[in-house]
């Protein structure tokens, strides 16, 4: 598979289809990390394995922003797994990058392993999102490398089971669970920075006028931040779970966002990133909508 990925990257760089290919490379101490390849000769640096967990859609918008005044935006090739492709659909739908400037290299995925992307850590089991994934092959790409497993996949319900456990708690117990999670939060904003859907130029959490939320790193502010962010992502979170992966203190943001995904899917039959055109349920109004409130 990696030969195919490299050869596609080499070709689209050589024929100037794109200015840069965003993929994965080997980092230090066994880590895999995002790579930015600008010439065909460098394409051999790319790697593909079960530690390519980062959602590279997160870098697409930034690359598209013109680096110098007047210079045309870069044309970007990017390697996407199924979950990443859903996140990219959210960006396309939200007009954060024009499809015409992108070359999407989809890769059929066998799932990524826990601890991926970090230096010096042994890989663990499949990440929870991968255990639950039924998709495996990204949709809407210009080219797809690899095929879906012939036997199909039987998604587990690892995250769903945890949601059920949370749902069975009393509201007070649930609040206690989340407060214990948020108590560890450092407000380092890694969750937000790693999130493709968190592209606001100014985050509500840092807005000065009005100041919705103070700078204190205390539980009320942290609760506000995470709750606000979860609501802003409702119907826009594609479930790549980068937020949970990058969190240095293991706050279960994957569960928080999965909770909202389940609500949105249950209420509207909508999955964020299912395509690049359907408006987000909470960000659109249809005249025929029932207003029997």
């Amino acid at each position, binding site marked *: 598979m990696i030969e195919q990925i490299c050869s596609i990257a080499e070709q689209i760089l050589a024929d100037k289809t794109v200015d840069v290919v965003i993929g994965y490379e080997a980092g230090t101490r066994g*880590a895999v990390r995002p*790579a*930015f390849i600008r010439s065909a000769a460098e394409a051999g640096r790319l790697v593909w394995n079960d530690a390519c967990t980062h959602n590279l859609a997160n870098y697409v918008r930034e690359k598209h922003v013109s680096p110098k005044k007047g210079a045309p935006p870069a044309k970007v090739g990017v390697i996407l797994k199924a979950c990443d492709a859903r996140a990219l659909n959210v960006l396309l739908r939200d007009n954060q990058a024009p499809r015409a400037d992108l070359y999407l290299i989809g890769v059929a995925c066998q799932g990524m392993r826990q601890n991926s*992307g*970090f*230096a010096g850590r042994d890989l663990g089991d499949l990440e929870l999102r991968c255990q639950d994934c039924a998709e495996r092959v990204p949709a809407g790409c210009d080219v797809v490398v690899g095929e879906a497993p012939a036997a199909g996949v039987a998604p587990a319900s690892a995250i769903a089971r945890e949601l059920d456990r949370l749902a069975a708690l009393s509201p007070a117990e649930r609040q206690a669970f989340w407060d214990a999670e948020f108590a560890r939060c*450092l*407000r380092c904003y890694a969750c937000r920075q790693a999130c493709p859907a968190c592209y606001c130029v100014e985050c509500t959490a840092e807005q000065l006028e009005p100041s919705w939320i103070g700078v204190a*790193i205390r539980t009320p502010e942290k609760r506000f931040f995470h709750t606000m962010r979860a609501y802003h992502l409702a119907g826009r979170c594609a479930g790549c779970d980068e937020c949970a992966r990058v969190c*240095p203190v293991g706050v279960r943001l994957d569960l928080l966002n999965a909770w909202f995904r389940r609500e949105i899917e249950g209420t509207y039959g909508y999955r964020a990133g299912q395509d690049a055109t359907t408006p987000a349920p909470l960000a659109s109004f249809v005249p025929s909508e029932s207003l029997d409130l």
Partner: protein
Amino acid sequence: MNFITDAQLRGWLAQLIAESTVIAPRRAGEDLLLYQPVEDPDAICYDFGRSTVSPREFFLPATEALLTVERVRQATAGDGATAGNATVAGQWEVKLTEPHLQHDQVLFAVRPCDVHALTALDALMLKEPADAYYAERRARTTLIGLACEQMGSSCFCTSLGLSPDDGAGMDVMLYRADGGYILEILTDKGRVALASQAPVDFEGSRPQRAWPEAAYQVPPRAVWTDHFNDPYWASLAERCLSCKICSYICPTCRCFDVRDYTVAQAAGYQKIERLRCWDSCMAEGYRRIAGGHNPRAAKAQRLRNRFYCKFDYYPADFGPLACVGCGRCVDQCPVNVDITEVLQDVAAR
């Protein structure tokens, strides 16, 4: 030298817990070890490599009220508490409160790198005029060190001239031994903390270990100066998320933001807090100034600043390097920005 058995150590900790706030390493989750106040010696994790977040927060808390101003409208006339003036019903009485530690602190099982980081911070924070809040926490904290038995995979303290079993800066130093710890009292504060205990005299010396030689060299300041405009920084920063993990888990990062907040507005009562909270040069808004200009608007400028602060600016301004080689940022960066790779890259350019 003394020897203290495991049982004696727990007894000593129980006594310290009764007298002061004891902060010690605790397992807070899989792969998560945090220094936290403990109420029970059995809650402490005694066998660990290094905490996920540095214990700096007990000297520079993530959030600290530097000052509280309260205004209370007097219901009845009486002797005013402030300035000896008699108060009059209906008048506002103003009360200013400075925070002080309620109890002395004991930081148990602190690693040599983290204490070396405090020494490095002292060069700035205790320089006259000293930061009174930091100074109080330093003065009222007893440091009980625990020597490392091995270096972690990302540890590189020996490259910065430090040693994993160096007791410098500690009040008491512990070295793991069969059935207990070899114990070294290094300061009067340590002597006081141990006053009620009777550790057994220990004939012999502490364990001598041959530590790996320096794996990396810190380029001299002139090299950093030469590479300020190197395109390397833009290329390194491409994958950087511009989050604050590296600075918030770092034992020597110390930047903060100070803001005033109104707390309560009940009738007849007003309160304002002046909060000091962690901030980081990795954050986009960190360097933004009045009027909106941001001299470090680009991610690459911010990431470059992290390394220049540690290896160029801080040593130039205050003496010590602002890096102790703990390796936390190496382990925790989700996109593998590896400070040891940066040291090698800069040296090679």
